[in-house]
């Protein structure tokens, strides 16, 4: 004990670096706690259950529906077609910025930024990044069940 130099006495000041280290660790702990607490709070506004109506719905096609003529179910953004090969549904929500496209004999036309799509949904003009998706259709008796959550390859038709 006596051999120890007085410099190493516990009464002497601590090396400043160690205090800095403790202080900085405390600061870092506080900052990261607050940061992750705020991040966790973002879970609240991230909706878990969507309030929008069911994405699967039945459609009854009128007998008079001609080939290439679109049937738009009430309140839905889907165009349902029927030809000799079967029934198919194409989403009418523009893949650019979500406006509802209008069906015409040449295909679809978006009123917001002028995207045009051919009758099978392929982009022919404008800023739309993707073709209009084809939606899954299944037969249920005399009704057709359209499922907006399932995208099928273009050309898939239900019989």
């Amino acid at each position, binding site marked *: 004990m006596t051999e120890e130099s007085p410099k190493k006495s516990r009464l002497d000041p601590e090396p400043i670096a160690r205090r800095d280290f403790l202080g900085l660790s405390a600061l870092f702990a506080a900052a990261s706690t607050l940061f992750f607490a705020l991040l966790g709070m973002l879970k609240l506004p991230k909706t878990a259950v969507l309030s929008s109506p069911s994405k699967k719905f039945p459609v009854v096609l009128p007998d008079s529906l001609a080939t290439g003529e679109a049937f738009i179910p009430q309140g839905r953004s889907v165009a349902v077609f029927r030809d000799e090969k079967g029934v198919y549904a194409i989403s009418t929500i523009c893949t650019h*910025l*979500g406006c509802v496209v209008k069906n015409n004999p040449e295909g679809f036309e978006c*009123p917001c930024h002028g995207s045009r799509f051919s009758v099978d949904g392929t982009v022919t003009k404008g800023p739309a990044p993707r073709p209009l998706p084809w939606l899954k259709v299944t037969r249920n008796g005399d009704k057709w069940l359209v499922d907006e959550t399932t995208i099928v390859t273009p050309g898939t038709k239900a019989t």
Partner: protein
Amino acid sequence: MSTNTTNQNRSGLEKFWDNLRALPEYFRGTAFRTGVPNTDRTRSSFVFGNLFLHLHSVRTHLWSLKWSTTMGLGIITTAAFLITLITGVLLMFYYKPYPDVAYLSMKDIHFVVPTGRFIRNIHRWAANIMVVTVILHMARAFYTAAYRKPREFNWLMGIALLAITLAMSFTGYLLPWDQLAYWAITIGANIAQSPRELTDALGLTEYIDPGGLIRLLLLGSDNVGPEALIRFYLLHIMILPLILAMLMGVHFWRIRKDGGLARPVDAESRLGVLPTNTYPVFTQAPAKTYQLAAVVKGRTPLVGRGPESTVPSMPHLFYAELAVLMFTVFICVTLALISDAPLKELANPSVPENPAKAPWYFLGLQELVSFSAFMGGIGIPTIVMIGLGLIPFLDREENGTGEWFGGTGGLDVVKRATFIGLAVPIFIETIAISFGWIREWFPQTPQIIVTFINPATIITLAYALYSIYLVRRYNSTRAGALGLFTCFLCGFLVLTIIGTYFRGPNWVFYWSPLDWPKH
């Protein structure tokens, strides 16, 4: 002293009566301790003894009071904000943030509520004025090179205030729940989702989808419905105004701490003969350099620079500010009497408004997103914001601070850049409108190429290259900044005008709304 002694001789009831009579005078004394501001001393304490006024310094430089220094643009912006605040709170008495009901309450405000229509018009005009003046105020600060040391940080605060002002306007746009509102917000929310354009092209969307997350947080659902309306309402009336007010506080406080408004080094001699009610703080340049060691960095603002031409802020500055406030109120009320805020039909989620146009100051952006949702709506605005924010850190020259079009190049560069800034977007738009773009020429082009090579990105690139050219040609960062900022303003102007006046149904180009197809 004599009153004290007489007081002691009076009865309790008499003292009560005396106190009651002295109440107004005494109360005024406790609230405003300084008395009438008619001497330099009371004028000073009038400022620093008041919570709201002490954001100002006690004395104001005459250069700051010159009309041409600021044109009052910052104060107009603040005044417009205060007007929207008051009228906005009034509108909240009747507004109900729920789909369809919201629209009915807007109708009530317009047709039934006493002065409701007038108050809503003022709110709408003040908001528009705020957007215009916040941009002009930024242009003023830029062209007078006021962003330079020590005001770099305050320039960043200004950029943040610009962004929040735009966000305030945009969130307010949804609240009427009419066709205009519904489709503008649908487009806006999908712009927020547009990072998907990039992640889709790279095949990453199923692993990481920042666009979808932002949209979900913004709308609270997968379409614009009740959750979206209440979120926009909350942002509009609570979150954004709180942030805005806080940042405004920092912005104003920093003006004082940064030594008042920027002015030329020879401002004193330029002011010429000073009015009789001004006098220099120091009559001679002090021999000793005062320094508050360890408290203030560097020299204190007034010391060592010799005579300064300042006047008391009360009344010179405050009366000027009050005049600008009254002028803003006058303009808002006049416009509100002349023109009604629009209210279209009730929102219909299955039939878009055609053309569906955002508020006018976003139509330049809408023109850009009509080429690519991601680059136009997120990529280029981000580049522009970062570019604006970097200006004070990249241009550290000192000549010309505080002067209109000061610095190397000056008005000469601004004139050239105006020409380039107008010509480039007009030329590129002419090509795109007359001949179409890559997709019309080569229909098989992959989306990633359309995203990165389109009129919007080419205009941005042309501006950036022109600015680099100016830096080299004038051998000055200020010249480059002048060019870039002028181009930015010109591009904003051209695209906004095209979006506002020359785009019709299906976003097709028309020379006049009279040529629009009838439907």
